[in-house]
């Protein structure tokens, strides 16, 4: 790498929350998480030169896009900086980190804010599954119903799943989940 990339700070929201019940939207958690990272990094927001936002499907889940425009709402000093939105289904967040990293490696910027966000609890499970179907080959893999799109995907994996596999894995993960409360 021509220029090294470091993490100077970060933050997150508690994933237990239901934003709709709080009367909030994806906008609020982009702002909230963005502020946390800047506070944690202990830098003046004016130092941030660019912003990357990872999101899969706010367009369908919330009818809101152009999420980079929420970056200036994190702090007025961010108004005017370049922002971009990355999408690759569940890998949307990693792509925003990579975008930020490659900006630094390529010598374009020295300080980049990366925020990944999703608001999904906006609709019924069935409608939500249909939106998630966009992560697969929607028009070809989606057979009769929205749910069966995921059923179809898991069916492909079933060839090498044994019941024991899932059970063994769960044992450990549930224990992790129990002892490790999420930081707010």
């Amino acid at each position, binding site marked *: 790498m021509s220029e090294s990339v470091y993490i*100077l700070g970060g933050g997150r*929201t508690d994933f237990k929350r239901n934003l709709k019940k709080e009367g909030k939207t994806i906008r609020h958690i982009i702002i909230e998480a963005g502020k946390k990272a800047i506070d944690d990094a202990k830098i003046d927001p004016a130092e941030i030169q660019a912003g990357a936002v990872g*999101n899969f499907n706010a367009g369908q889940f919330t009818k809101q896009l152009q999420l980079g425009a929420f970056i200036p709402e994190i702090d007025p000093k961010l108004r005017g900086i370049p922002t971009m939105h990355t999408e690759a289904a569940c890998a949307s967040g990693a792509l925003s980190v990579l975008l930020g990293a490659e900006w630094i490696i390529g010598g374009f910027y020295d300080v980049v804010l990366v925020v990944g966000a999703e608001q999904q609890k906006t609709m019924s499970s069935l409608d939500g599954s249909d939106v998630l179907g966009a992560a697969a080959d929607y028009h070809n893999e989606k057979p009769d119903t929205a749910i069966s799109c995921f059923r179809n995907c898991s069916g492909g994996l079933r060839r090498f799943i044994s019941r024991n596999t899932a059970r063994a894995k769960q044992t450990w993960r549930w224990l992790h989940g129990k002892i490790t409360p999420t930081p707010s």
Partner: protein
Amino acid sequence: MRDADLTLDCASQVSDKNPSVAPPLKVSDCSQITDGAASVVLVSGKYLDKIGRDKNKTARLLGYGHTTDYLPLDKKDAPTFSIARKAAEKAFRMANLTPRDLQGAEVHDCFSITEIVAYEILGLAESGKGVELVKSGATALPQVRTEKFKGPFQIPVNAGGGLIADGHPVGATGVRQVFEAYQQLTEQAGARQIESAKKFLTFNMGGSLTTSVAMVWGRD
């Protein structure tokens, strides 16, 4: 999900409380619909020098790999997933490390089987041996083990519960994994801290392993 009133026995079988979603996957095998966000500030080494911060006290990106496969699952070479494997191989090659050099990992477990498949893709386990790795306890946090671990290689995975127990706000997950890497490498992970974590892997994937991103992070 982490607050769900669900015992291990209950999580292991289909019941009214834990219905089948797509056999053999039950509700407890699936990540849940989630609202959430995560964030990081990335900076250059040059900038750290400029503001006088110690580079040894934070996490550095040592290597990464990013690949894209065909979109439909039936056009992919399951269960090998050679394109996803390339992402992991690239990341390790760039970092000049092997899976055995890692002390921890955050791995994409949108479904319980996904994590097992990922172990094999990432080289944490040989092909077909992902289940054995789990059963050995090698991927459990030492803090939660009920039996003493005797194996040659251990790598706690998804110390915070991963996508199933913590949550999977789709666009936030990849950033949340990197934030977790940062917290682990800077010893800010609290109860889920992996002791002496110096090299850490994150693996985020989209669709049915369509887009794969592996990143290796470390602290000098």
